[in-house]
């Protein structure tokens, strides 16, 4: 196998020549010069890439649009918006390639070339996104956005706006009809490239499959009722430009790696019937320290997967039994607990959701209103949750989609909510709280969209739940004091419309009686209230129990999904609710 060093192979075809554009904002010049080179682009597409192809993945699609072209298009849009009357405008333009490959199948190369434009007039914002960033369409989009925002600004006195009864003690309407919605958007300029050693797009599909086959080859040497059931890698590269009317202009060459390795255990109980045999563990991921192709090379990844398989083997030996409903003590593995946090707490912490932006779509938040929640000991004092910027593979960027630099910050400290997920439009809401804590009103840098044409959201790329130093080092150790409980491995929680509760489905529930695992349970479900669950945490596991999983923050119409990772320890909760999902059709 040959792997080239960090190169990005040029497209085999000749491309139209491009001029070097001056930094001027003449719309007429932009239209005449760019019309030829911006049109005829593949704006969204999928290309099947043969798994045996030996040319680089990059050669299967046109090369990324040059950054200067994107910058000039962006300036065109901003100029149009400000000339039409926008008090503030910003735009994201991005040309993205995503290559998804899994063992045994051809790869898929997805192309997305789009824009997302935002304008603000008198406290009203309008966003328009699309996948046809020609000068004409961008100018039309900018003017349309301004017209719409201006029209709506005139109706801002309507119910729900600034004016409401001041003597209504239950009113939690937050006034956002100020003119400084975007006052805290920094002015930044610069360029950044994601640091990778080997560009995945300079590697051939054949080499990609070879690397994945090397991981899947673990099955050939592993002896035991566990196998690698699936391998899926998605590599992403993108040129993304952010330009604002305040003077920001940043260009980033982004890279992302999304690995998924599914493990499947097979119950050794000879009485297992169809559907009960399989013990999937597909939610746990092994986050890369780097997003370059070097991640799938070498032994460390294989060793981690192999160890996970070894750890799963003993769990396949338990006999199978039907879940009995009732109150149970619970132990969640790190994967399950991480997803509980990801499915409930993090959507609920999105401040725009707290303020009602999603009330007619994905929902609202149980962590509302902010003034009643911030600083209150809602959860167990041992619970500490933070947004982190390092060590994971999502949202590695120098600036977010508002030009802010991502930073680490706590959201839950000693069981109390201490921050929400904000963007510049919602950040002013936190002013009093930040002042009270001696913090500056600093952006979090988590405002992002998967592709430039998507509506950006305050969505952290990575979250961390702290473990207990010297805490219990395993699930069995956590379960040692359980009289009648259940261990939940690789559970799949789903939250309700407020994150106030949910249920956890898992094929890997294990009954514990007097500290001893007795059976694997089928047709069981855990229902929970988020506040009760998190308040009732008695023990948080040690660093050895930490696992990383992934979930997606979903919102909007059409629905957008923004992935994130959550790294969390195992936890013990004395009071849980086991229900049955058994059905009998006559």
């Amino acid at each position, binding site marked *: 196998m040959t792997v080239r060093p960090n190169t990005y192979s040029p497209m085999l075809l000749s491309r139209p020549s491009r001029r070097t554009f001056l930094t001027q904002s003449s719309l007429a010049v932009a239209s005449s010069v760019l019309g030829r080179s911006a049109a005829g682009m593949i704006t969204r597409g999928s290309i099947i890439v043969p798994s045996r192809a030996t040319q680089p993945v990059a050669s299967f699609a046109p090369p990324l649009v040059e950054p200067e072209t994107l910058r000039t298009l962006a300036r065109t849009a901003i100029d149009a918006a400000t000339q039409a009357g926008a008090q503030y405008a910003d735009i994201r333009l991005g040309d993205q390639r995503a290559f998804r490959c899994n063992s045994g199948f051809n790869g898929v190369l997805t192309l997305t070339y789009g824009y997302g434009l935002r304008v603000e007039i008198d406290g009203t914002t309008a966003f328009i996104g699309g996948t046809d960033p020609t000068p004409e369409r961008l100018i039309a989009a900018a003017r349309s956005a301004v017209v719409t925002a201006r029209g709506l600004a005139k109706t801002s006195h309507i119910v729900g706006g600034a004016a409401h009864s001041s003597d209504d003690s239950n009113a*939690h309407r937050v006034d956002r009809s100020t003119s400084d919605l975007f006052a805290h958007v920094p002015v930044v300029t610069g360029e950044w490239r994601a640091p990778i050693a080997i560009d995945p797009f300079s590697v051939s599909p054949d080499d990609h499959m070879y690397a994945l086959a090397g991981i899947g080859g673990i099955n050939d040497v592993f002896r035991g009722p566990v196998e690698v059931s699936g391998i899926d890698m998605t590599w992403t590269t993108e040129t993304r430009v952010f330009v604002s009317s305040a003077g920001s202009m940043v260009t980033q060459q982004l890279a992302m790696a999304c690995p998924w390795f599914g493990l499947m255990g097979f119950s050794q109980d000879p009485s297992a019937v169809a*559907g009960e045999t399989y013990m999937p563990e597909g939610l746990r991921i092994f986050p890369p320290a780097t997003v370059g192709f070097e991640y799938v090379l070498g032994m460390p990844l294989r060793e981690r997967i192999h160890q996970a398989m070894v750890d799963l083997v003993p769990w396949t030996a338990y006999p199978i039994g039907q879940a009995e409903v009732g109150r149970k003590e619970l132990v969640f593995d790190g994967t399950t607990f991480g997803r509980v946090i990801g499915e409930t707490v993090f959507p609920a912490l999105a401040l725009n959701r707290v303020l009602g932006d999603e009330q007619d779509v994905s929902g609202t938040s149980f962590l509302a209103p902010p003034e009643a929640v911030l600083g209150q000991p809602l959860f167990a004092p041992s619970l500490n949750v933070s947004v982190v910027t390092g060590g994971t593979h999502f949202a590695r960027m120098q600036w977010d989609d508002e030009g802010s630099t991502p930073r680490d910050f706590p959201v839950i400290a000693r069981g109390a909510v201490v921050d929400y997920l904000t963007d510049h439009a919602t950040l002013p809401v936190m002013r009093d709280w930040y002042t009270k804590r001696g913090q500056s009103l600093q952006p979090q840098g988590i405002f992002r969209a998967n592709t430039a044409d998507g509506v950006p959201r305050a969505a952290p790329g990575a979250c961390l739940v702290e473990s207990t130093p010297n805490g219990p080092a395993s699930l069995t150790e956590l379960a040692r004091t359980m009289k009648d409980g259940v261990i939940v491995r690789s559970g799949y929680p789903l939250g309700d419309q407020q994150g106030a509760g949910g249920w956890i489905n898992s094929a890997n529930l294990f009954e514990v009686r007097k500290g001893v695992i007795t059976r694997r349970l089928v047709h069981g479900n855990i229902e929970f209230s988020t*506040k009760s669950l998190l308040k009732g945490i008695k023990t948080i596991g040690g660093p050895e129990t930490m696992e990383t999983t992934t979930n997606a923050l979903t919102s909007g119409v059409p629905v957008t999904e923004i992935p994130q990772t959550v790294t969390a320890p195992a936890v013990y909760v004395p009071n849980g609710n086991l229900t049955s999902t058994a*059905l009998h059709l006559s």
Partner: protein
Amino acid sequence: MNDLSFLARRADPSRTDPSQGADSDRTRRVLTREEAIALAESARQMTSIPVDWIIIVQRAAAVAKIVNSQRFHCIDLDELRLEFNTKLGSGFGVLVGTNVRDAATLRRAIHSAETAKAPQMRVEDQEPDDADDPHHQWTKPKHYLPISLWHDSTARAMETARGETLAHMASCMQTLQTLGESNTSSLPPLTMAATVAVSARVRLCHYAGGMNAWGEATDSEVTANARTLDGKASGWSGQTHRDWGQIDPERIVREAVTMANRTRGAVRLEPGRYTAVLGPAAVGQLVRMMYGYFAVFRNRDMLGPFSLVNAPDGKKLRLGQRVFDERISMWSEPNDPMGGYFPFFPDGWPSDKALWIEHGVLRNLAYNEEEALHIGRPATLEPWSMHMGGGTTTIDEMIRNCDRGVYVHRFGSVQYANPRLCGLSGTTRDGCFLIKDGKIAHPITNFRFFESPFLMFNRILAIGVPERVAFGYLRPQWSMTLTSPEEHQWPAPPIIVPPLMIRDFNFSSLSDAV
């Protein structure tokens, strides 16, 4: 080479301004049938490799969202995609979305896409043409059910509806509050969020053998949610119709506000099994989760709800047996006047009306083209649009005939809890009430439920008149169907269902969510 000047005409943003004239051609953002065929023929001539079929899909949509008149999001979609397929090797397999506006740029886009495949597709690798190959018969012209899914009113609305309608809805909200039309003037005010979504879509499957499947459709959906400032009461309403002229934004706002006000002061009710009166929106959210179970392959291995276990005669499917209440019939009909969809598979093979359940009896399951040819049954799309009928009882009549039960306006966060048998879990939301002695007694807090439609539809007490339901937000889920993923994109294909009165509906626990 065909004249492709229509591409530029369709793509010009300035030409879609309805104020320039009511000419439907001026307001149309997607290709006509003739234009799509011309584009396909031009694309075929531009390729250097024999192309078996070309699929052209164009989707234009405008989705606008307003929150308390302060925040406005608008997403404009305008995607033109060409998919090329050939018999050579593993196939061309390229989908290209492009802002192509003329023949030269189309040629460039096609060339850049096919060049990458060149090492795989040499003309000399092509198998000799065989006139007896069934594939040739397969690509001959076919007959398709006539459909009428396009409305010029909706196409025009794509440019004007968003701003006007949302502002109008916000104004309605103010009127209701200040004039007390819903007796709200003495109550704490409400917040409102609303979404207006309008779309137009075309699809052409163009075969070298002459088969041409064509479909064009418009669709629109308006939803609104009103909520008390303390977050303890919430109401929702929505309407969806292919004809924008049938949408009534004022009624939607009025219903959302009314429901929000009626859910103030909700109290808890002990979870358990109750007679449930489910509104059409609630029923629709359950029925859409059933689609994949009508696929024959899901039932073959005795794992699906329509399979027989240990059948002595070796037959494993319950075709011809009564599986639901005899009042229930379920069908999918491309030219359904209440919804409809394209009368062909994603690859162009015709798909006629499918009668799934007739008076409770399972009549058909979905077989794909190859299976259907093999066993001599008609090929049918897995349902991704469903019409359920069978009754005339109104919701008021259901309530009057209920001594003690629960009225559910809609559900939220519905997901599979028992995927094998379509066991569903989720929560009630935006309107849940106790029914007592034939009347709505008071609002109650939300429940979590666990039910399977395959069980529920055997506990029917009453069935109402079906209507097409709106969904608004639909959380992505593991899809049980294998039809084209674009068919599951927003807007949701039509679901036409009645309100239902169900015995012993399982409200499994209380939910804290509002």
